[in-house]
């Protein structure tokens, strides 16, 4: 009896370990600093994680379908720069759809290369990381982008305003998370994404258009990047060319922390959100405790390895790998 109970607890820990760790962290930080669980602080953390989070939502689709996307950082720089530049040229009402169209065209290109031409997603998106960065620099001529009339534009709404006391970035990521979560868990398309990532060959034999599903995943990812670019541009109203550089790896860290397997076929939007929040709260908690910002890197390292290791260990039923 006691044994089965221990086993159940073990299984629970293995399955929801990341949530348990999250709760433990929150309690620890809350005890160390009274302000940590204050509503202002929590809002602040969620808000500053929103941009990373929005991208992570899209990348979750790509990862579940069994691919990777390393180009999201460059792509976010691109959309931020483009929307800021067009803002003064054709006005915000036209600039936003134009930016979405351009960013999603890039996503479609990647989707075509990975989906229809079946090229390795890691290398394609690595190439696109470099190429889109070059594109951004060419577009901006290497200069920083700024909006002329910073006080008078309604464009700042997305990044700076609040609705009913809740900052808009939080509303955006919440809305997007709910919609994408429904898409992934409640629609035939969502099931196809899991099927393609879980076993591509089997999916093809059961009549699922693998290429089109992969293509759509990259399109969703690009859409999310465009949203993130919009939030970033609207928040700062000016930007360097390198604003998104390095985001791709933070995003992957969050997605992996949420428990999505890089081999594809597993992961959920909810877990990705948890992964993003864990990264955000650890960063914030360590700062509040008085540690320098770079300590979070080391902590993140340990957490990522432990999270994935325990997940794998639970699946194979033993702690250490059986490889000789």
């Amino acid at each position, binding site marked *: 009896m006691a044994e089965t109970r221990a086993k159940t607890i073990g299984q629970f820990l293995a399955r929801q370990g990341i949530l348990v760790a999250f709760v433990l962290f929150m309690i620890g930080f809350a005890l160390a600093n009274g302000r940590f669980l204050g509503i202002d602080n929590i809002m602040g953390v969620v808000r500053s994680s929103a941009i990373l989070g929005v991208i992570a939502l899209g990348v979750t689709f790509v990862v579940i379908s069994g691919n990777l996307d390393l180009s999201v950082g460059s792509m976010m720089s691109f959309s931020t720069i483009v929307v800021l530049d067009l803002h003064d040229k054709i006005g915000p009402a036209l600039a936003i759809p134009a930016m979405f169209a351009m960013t999603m065209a890039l996503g479609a290109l990647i989707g075509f290369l990975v989906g229809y031409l079946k090229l390795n997603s890691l*290398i394609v998106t690595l190439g696109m990381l470099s190429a889109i960065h070059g594109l951004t620099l060419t577009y901006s001529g290497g200069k920083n982008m700024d909006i002329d009339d910073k006080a008078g534009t309604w464009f700042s709404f997305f990044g700076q305003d609040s609705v009913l006391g809740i900052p808009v970035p939080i509303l955006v990521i919440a809305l997007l998370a709910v919609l994408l979560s429904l898409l992934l868990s409640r629609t035939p398309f969502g099931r196809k994404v899991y099927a393609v990532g879980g076993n591509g060959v089997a999916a093809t034999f059961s009549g699922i258009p693998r290429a089109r599903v992969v293509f759509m995943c990259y399109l969703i990812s690009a859409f999310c990047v465009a949203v993130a670019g919009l939030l970033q541009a609207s928040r700062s109203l000016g930007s360097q060319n390198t604003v998104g550089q390095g985001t791709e790896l933070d995003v992957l860290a969050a997605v992996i922390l949420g428990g999505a397997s890089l081999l594809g076929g597993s992961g959920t939007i909810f877990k990705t959100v948890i992964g993003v929040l864990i990264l955000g709260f650890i960063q914030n908690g360590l700062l509040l405790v008085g540690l320098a910002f770079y300590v979070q890197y080391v902590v*993140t390292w340990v957490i990522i*390895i432990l999270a*994935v290791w325990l997940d794998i260990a639970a699946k194979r039923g033993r702690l*250490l790998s059986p*490889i*000789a």
Partner: protein
Amino acid sequence: MKPYLKQSAIWGFVVLELIFFSVAGEFLSLSDKAFMDLDNMLLLFKQSAPIGIIALGMTVVMINGNIDLSVGAIFALCAIIMLDSMKWPIFAGLGDWVILVGWLLALLSGMVLGLINGLIVWKTGVDAFIVTLGSMLGYRGLVFMYNGENPTSNLNWTMVDIAEADILGIETPTIVFVICTILVWLLMTRTVHGRNAYAIGDNREAAVNAGIRVGPHMVWNFVLIGFLAALSAVVFYSASGSVNPNDGTLYELWVITAVVLGGTKLTGGSGSVIATFGGVIAIQLLRKGLGHIGADTAMVNLVIGLILIAVLFLDRQLNRKGKEELRT
């Protein structure tokens, strides 16, 4: 015959670049100097050395079926350890011998960092991509913890003299790069370890069944790339004498680009050290060449990205036979 043909593809590309930039340079270049003069080519080799030395290790790791994203952070951490350790009070009485101590400490640290990666990959069974993605963050964190956000400097003129010494005009970085290429090539083509590394990358199950101890081979390869990342730092920072905590960021991406350009497969089991050498030269040539004809860095990024994808596409088209994929 076929493997030689594949290996020589990258050299064909290098020759093509040389011809293109020489001709285009005649019309577009702002300077009177020819693109292909000796000084320029020697400089090219010297500038490729930091990325190139790491790329050799990445080739081995990728042939083995793994990947290492933490090389940039290892590079920076070892550079800091090298420069800082020379100022430690316990080594105060050593005079210029302290340089040797600093170098050895840096190389040792690189091997230890690689060992940590390798042991985690082996013992936990977590994919190398995730393990080294984590340690890329973790090691970078250690870099910052070492000296905050300040640069670490230690200019030692004897060290600079050694780092910039030359034999017949060929400078130290180039010499180290070439010697390393030859040694790693010998390791991969003439030793049991190399043969096993190919076997493991090609088919891990089969390698296990053939009695190859997969784990230790993988660990040694991670130690090797750690060592080479540290060596790259030693070569580079002995001359410059100052390291910023952000140095080496994105190196992993440049290195992987060079290796893939050289034709090494991400899936493991195939690849060549000599072809990686060619890939490194090709990238550096592209950078210099585009600069020569007046293009800016933006164009370099764009072109390298597109070439990478084109190479992948061509490679797939040429190697389709025999491995016909499932058509959809």
